[in-house]
């Protein structure tokens, strides 16, 4: 704090002497936090090491003995888990604060090397035979278990992604949009079911008061996946007369999530729901304008977007105020 600032504040007698003293002490012994720098270094370290090991194995798969490689990976994994087991806080249904970031990232490294280990086993020895479901199921189980046991949100996200892989799709948002092949109906249904499962999981964690803070991750992935798959489901059945059912489902879901987000005062989810519903609604409107098939419809379309966007801006500002006030 600026020295002139607090002298002035003190003169005006708004801040107690004790508080001023606190500020002055902090001013005299400024502490410089290296927290974020160290955290980034840890993240980079884990990322580089796991990538490097992965490539190393891939390239030398024929030269080094398989057992040696397996042993090294297993040793890293076991070492990380051993450290985490030693330093962990006892399990609780509530949020458990991790002892430090080193713990977080070593846990991550342990999980990553375990995944490599399983993958290597499968690649070299085909332990699971051609039962690929098993080969992805076991890592997924481990990830979820570790996420709950050690309370690690990053690993929970990885677990969710692995759940998707197990179900046959990938949920990383970049992947979802770039390589998503939405022509295939099975894929759309799989996505939809996955999204709904995640939403359910989010709600259940709160209902049973079991790791309530995991709700955010579940809902984050769940909302994106369900809405995107509903929209693509609609387009996939565009010419069918029953295609509106997809959007109907979307609006019902949106309404439910909207009330839920209002209840939890989560503006992020509220924004997602509002924007996705706006997209769906606009799709109907544009379809209507196309059906008119007249030059006047283009004017109407422009006016619609201008008007609706202004209305939506007002709505968002209003909702934000409401959430803040409550």
């Amino acid at each position, binding site marked *: 704090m*600026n020295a002139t600032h607090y002298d002035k504040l003190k003169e005006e007698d708004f801040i*107690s002497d004790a508080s001023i003293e606190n500020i002055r002490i902090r001013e005299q012994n400024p502490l410089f936090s290296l927290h974020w720098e160290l955290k980034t270094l840890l*993240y980079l370290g884990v990322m580089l090491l796991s990538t490097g090991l992965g490539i190393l194995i891939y390239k030398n798969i024929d030269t080094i003995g398989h057992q040696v490689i397996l042993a090294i990976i297993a040793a890293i994994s076991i070492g990380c888990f051993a450290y985490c087991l030693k330093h962990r806080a006892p399990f609780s249904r509530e949020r458990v604060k991790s002892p430090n970031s080193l713990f977080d990232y070593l846990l991550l490294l342990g999980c990553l090397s375990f995944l490599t280990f399983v993958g290597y086993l499968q690649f070299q020895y085909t332990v699971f035979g051609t039962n690929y*479901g098993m080969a992805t199921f076991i890592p997924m189980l481990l990830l979820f278990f570790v996420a709950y046991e050690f309370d690690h*949100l990053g690993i929970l996200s990885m677990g969710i992604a692995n759940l998707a892989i197990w*179900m046959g799709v990938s949920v*990383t948002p*970049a992947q979802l949009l770039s390589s998503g092949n939405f022509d295939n109906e099975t894929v759309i249904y799989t996505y939809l079911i996955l999204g709904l499962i995640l939403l359910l999981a989010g709600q259940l964690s709160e209902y049973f008061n079991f790791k309530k803070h995991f709700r955010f991750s579940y809902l984050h992935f769940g909302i994106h996946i369900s809405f995107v798959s509903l929209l693509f489901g609609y387009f996939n059945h565009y010419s069918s007369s029953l295609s509106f059912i997809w959007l109907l489902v979307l609006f019902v879901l949106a309404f439910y999530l909207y009330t839920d987000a209002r209840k939890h005062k989560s503006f992020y989810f509220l924004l997602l729901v509002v924007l996705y519903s706006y997209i769906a609604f606009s799709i109907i409107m544009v379809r209507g304008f196309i059906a008119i098939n007249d030059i006047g419809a283009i004017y109407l379309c422009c006016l619609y*977007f201008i008007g609706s966007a202004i209305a939506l801006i007002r709505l*968002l500002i209003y909702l934000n105020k409401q959430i803040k006030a409550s």
Partner: protein
Amino acid sequence: MIIYNKTWLKNLDLQNQLKRAQRLGDITAEELKHMEEKYPVGFYTPNIFVRAGLFILTQIITSFAGGLLSLILSSMDELITSPGYWLFLGLISYIALELIVRRMHHFRSGVDDALMWTAAGLILSAFIGYLTIAQRNGLSAPFESYLFGFTLVLAGYFTLRFADMLMAVVSFLSLIFFLFFSRELFGVYAAAILPFLIILVSAGVYFLCIYWKKYKDYENCLTALRVFCLLIGYAAGNYFVVKEMGGMINQPLQEGEGLPLGWFFWTWTIALPFVYIALGLKRKEVILLRSGLILVAAAAFTFRNYYHIMPIEGALSIVGAALLAISYGVIHYLKTPKKGFTYEELDDDQLLDKIKVESLIVGETFSGPASAPEGSRMGGGSFGGGGSSADF
């Protein structure tokens, strides 16, 4: 010059400091509330999600409004393709921006961001349109010189008027590009002088930023500028950049031929990041420290580009392990704060915590395990490593 209410800006600064003091437990919540009433801020500044939402919606409005206007005017001959029309649209956006900020007191609300970038983009397009016409009639200096000269002025104006960080960065980068493209003015030795000139200019701007610290209203802009001065100043002397740029300007070097003054550029490439880090630690300045850390990676890549000591995977593993070891050592060392440094998170950013960015980044970059076998159960599944986490 600045459009915002200066008292409010001052109060905002004060409030932010007091909020931090409250988070650290120095003052009580009651005192904070008291101060907020005593020093009010009338700006409309919503949180980041609202800002993003409003930004998107404003873009929708401006583009459809522009489209509608163009549609109505499209019957007129060559009107909507003329640069003057773009300028006209740009000025409309600018007027809307001024009104929104003055009347409704929007301050980094998303609406003003969107209008600002639309206005600047349209005015710049109009300028490019005029420039193309001028070029047909013969232009004395290179096209890009005019372009970046104009961007410099335009972005500089927006920076001064709206104190926007990104605009400040754009104007600084325009200055650098302007120098680069106007190199012919420096005569035949342009390629040789250019790196040193850019280094000098970056250093100059950097020290100006420090000198300008008294202008509190532009604190954000100055911080952003300093980061980019450090990065550009480094890049201008980086061996790889100098070599490639020199090759672009003059003849490319022969195989095996080194750069003139190669030792200087190599020293610059390798030593400067560490100088930044050392200075950052000594002066406890986050900007220097973080820039230095980023640039160490750049130095490593540059070095690897010319000297292959070991294969990439070995380097990755060793560097990764080394980073883990170093961080472990430092965290261990700083268990109790030493010499004014601490590992503890002093001022945890509430917002970052709320959206849990870290967990999402981890999920994004590590979610495609190398282990998943080909052809998963339901078919149609493709998987793979990282993607950007640009999903907000």
